């Protein structure tokens, strides 16, 4: 009973926290110095902000259809935003940095030196990582399209 009475307060608290964090994410995108830092701010803070907003709306919801749809949005964002940001960070790194610097960096195992030329032999296990990632993304997209269709057919409400 007391939890049900406190639910609107929890909802508005989560919504306001998510809103503030979203504004902070955009502020970090403006003030941080280079593309990777900006992406760090936008992805991490933005994902947490959307998760907080979804949680607040779930606490404010009145029936089960709301909660199912918000869970769908939340699961989808939490599953796809890291993959998208990983690919975007790789693209930003290749766009910004010198190729010699990339090849000399010891910490990039994920196919960045291997993709630079077809002549050099790829190190073992470099390409399958990104292939697994791509297949994971495609499988997630198919699963979530199916779930979206089920939600639109009214299965969850």
């Amino acid at each position, binding site marked *: 009973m007391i939890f049900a009475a406190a639910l609107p307060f929890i909802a508005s608290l989560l919504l306001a926290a998510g809103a503030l964090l*979203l504004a902070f994410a*955009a502020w970090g995108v403006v003030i941080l110095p280079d593309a990777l830092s900006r992406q760090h701010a*936008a992805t991490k803070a933005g994902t947490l902000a959307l998760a907080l*907003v979804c949680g607040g709306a779930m606490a404010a919801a009145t029936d089960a259809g709301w909660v199912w749809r918000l869970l769908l*949005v939340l699961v989808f964002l939490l599953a796809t935003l890291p993959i998208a940001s990983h690919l*975007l960070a790789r693209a930003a790194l290749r766009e910004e940095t010198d190729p010699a610097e990339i090849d000399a960096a010891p910490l990039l195992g994920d196919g960045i030196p291997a993709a630079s030329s077809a002549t050099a032999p790829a190190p073992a296990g470099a390409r399958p990582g990104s292939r697994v990632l791509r297949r994971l993304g495609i499988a997630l997209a198919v699963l979530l399209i199916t779930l979206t269709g089920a939600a639109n057919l009214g299965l969850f409400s």
Partner: protein
Amino acid sequence: MIGAAVIVLIVAAIAATALATYRIIRGPTHADRVVALDVFLAAAVALCIAASLASGRTVFLDVAIGLALVGFVATIGWARLIERAPGRGGAAAAREPQSAARAGSAPAPPAGPPDP
């Protein structure tokens, strides 16, 4: 209570959109603009949730689901495009001759611990 929180959410999403617009206009590289586009996506999803909370209808939540899907595909597409495009020395196509020459002249990378 919730109405005030929804207003705070709408104001914050509009502020985030304004800041991301600044970054899209000023961004020195294409990756900055795509990052700002991600912020646009987050603000749009937050605005959809705020619209459904304000109007009490679940239609806008379906819009948010579709928006998240389209945003994911769009970000991956832009990332692939940036990766393939000839840019400031990071392009794969522009690097082909250099890396072939490097592979012929200097076979070992200069620094770093050996890969396991």
